[in-house]
């Protein structure tokens, strides 16, 4: 699986970024401004003479942490609310699902923009905000799984025997509902990384001088006619990362949930 390969390589790269980086990502050297790629600076330097490769490696750590933390938060909220809605049904379900409808109605990016303005743009807030605005799909998914699993005989039997709801939800239903959640979370990481880089690109995400692929690209945009490498490296990195998670998600879907992949056809 290409997807898994890309993802593993990226995780390793960002874990070992401090070791691999040839330079301090913040170290400026104004005598070396906007140098094209060379033997000493593989990916060239930026407008302050900082080494782009080192900044890219550290930027990768940011992307990765945004992906995981944001999806972690949305998993937490999505699973909780979806499980409660699907398991208990009735007015609880109605309340939660109507809330989801309302949240879905506000264009997510405007919501994010609003929250960023209120909370201020920085790495921590971005992770939380992306997490807070991306749980709706997951909660629907979990709810649907719960609705169908709840009808199964063994769950009905457990309920009749008086097993506490809490135990039924976490021990008996959740493990069986995890496959689609897992798949969706993988796609979610791709989405979160894309979103963070977009926001950082527009100056609403991770703030310089902290390197992130998005804000390196902003510099790339400003110097697009003079320094193509500043546009190319972050763009390709974001693309490959997001592609990797999307491919991984697709591969997982084929493995975990065969009924979702395309079927055959009449000749």
């Amino acid at each position, binding site marked *: 699986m290409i997807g898994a390969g890309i993802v593993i390589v990226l995780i390793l790269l960002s874990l070992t970024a401090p070791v691999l980086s040839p330079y301090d990502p913040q170290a400026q050297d104004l005598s070396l401004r906007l140098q094209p790629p060379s033997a000493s600076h593989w990916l060239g330097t930026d407008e302050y003479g900082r080494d782009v490769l080192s900044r890219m490696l550290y930027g990768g750590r940011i992307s990765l942490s945004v992906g995981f933390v944001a999806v972690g938060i949305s998993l937490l909220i999505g699973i909780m609310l979806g499980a409660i809605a699907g398991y208990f049904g009735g007015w609880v379900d109605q309340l939660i699902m109507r809330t989801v409808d309302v949240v*879905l*109605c*506000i*264009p*997510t*990016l*405007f*919501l*994010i*923009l*609003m929250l*960023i*303005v*209120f909370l*201020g743009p920085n790495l921590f807030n971005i992770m939380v905000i992306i997490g807070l605005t991306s749980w709706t799909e997951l909660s629907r998914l979990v709810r649907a799984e719960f609705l169908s699993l709840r009808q199964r005989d063994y769950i009905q039997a457990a309920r009749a025997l008086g097993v506490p709801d809490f135990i039924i939800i976490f021990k008996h239903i959740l493990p069986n509902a995890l496959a689609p959640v897992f798949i969706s979370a993988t796609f979610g990481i*791709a989405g979160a990384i*894309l979103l963070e*880089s*977009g926001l950082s*690109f*527009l*100056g*609403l995400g991770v703030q310089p001088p902290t390197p992130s692929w998005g804000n390196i*690209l902003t510099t*790339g*945009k400003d110097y*697009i*006619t003079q320094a193509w490498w500043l*546009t190319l490296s*972050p*763009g390709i990195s*974001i*693309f490959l990362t*997001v*592609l990797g998670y*999307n*491919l991984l998600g*697709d591969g997982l879907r084929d493995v975990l949930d065969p009924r979702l992949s*395309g*079927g*055959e*056809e*009449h000749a």
Partner: protein
Amino acid sequence: MHMDMNPNVSPDSIAEMKKMYGLDKPIPVQYADWVGRLMRFDFGRSFLDQRPVIAKIADRLPATLLLSGLSLFTIFILAIPLGVYSAMHHNSKKDRFITVFTFVGYSIPAFWLALLCMLFFGVILGWLPISGMRSVNHDMLGAVDKFWDYCAHLILPVFISAFGGLASISRYTRSNMLEVVRQDYIRTAKAKGLPRHSVYYLHALRNALLPIITIIGLALPGLIGGSFIFETIFSWPGMGRLAYESAMNFDYPTIMGIAVIGAMLTLIGNIIADILYAAVDPRIRL
């Protein structure tokens, strides 16, 4: 709020502003007032230039509607044939090629693609304008040239903002087609001796389109929300760019107004999708 932290604002003017925005009243009253005003589209005045927010939005809305409408249209006319084609050549080389394209489409950061296109078509080739809605000399052009000027300015923004949707809708069309093609009524259509094209483009596609209509309704918030990225990149004078400018200037009333209008547009879009759905599915009566 951020103005409390801004050392350049004097305490007097803070008090004055608090009064102006009703911040001196008790919180529940403030909240009720605020919701009531939102309902009446009274979003107050912009912090930035004191103009009524609704007027600022009204100025910018047509440009956004134009851009989103055209993107939606582009998605429709390109993605659906692509998905159908891919489904009809299921598991062939062509299908795999389209699948690769759709994965690239999902994964490529649209703002980066925008940069590359601006560089290539705008700077290197010089074929297309890369920012704004009209050229500097627009007012001096004749009617026909004016029209072409608009078109030229629209091409890149429309293409870029349609790109992501293109990939996902064509993928979705493909999987829907594959699902529909397995249905009994498709087998009936073949057994009746209908030619292949009417089996696929009439019988299968009509059924595969039903969920696509809903999906497009659901995709609308993304498109409208995404406008703030694309409009900012292309300096498109729409609501999305207004949102960005307001965010950069902490202009809360304007952002709030834009979010409400955005939600309203989404609602309208969903209602239209529901009506369309009912129009193509005879099992549903409004």
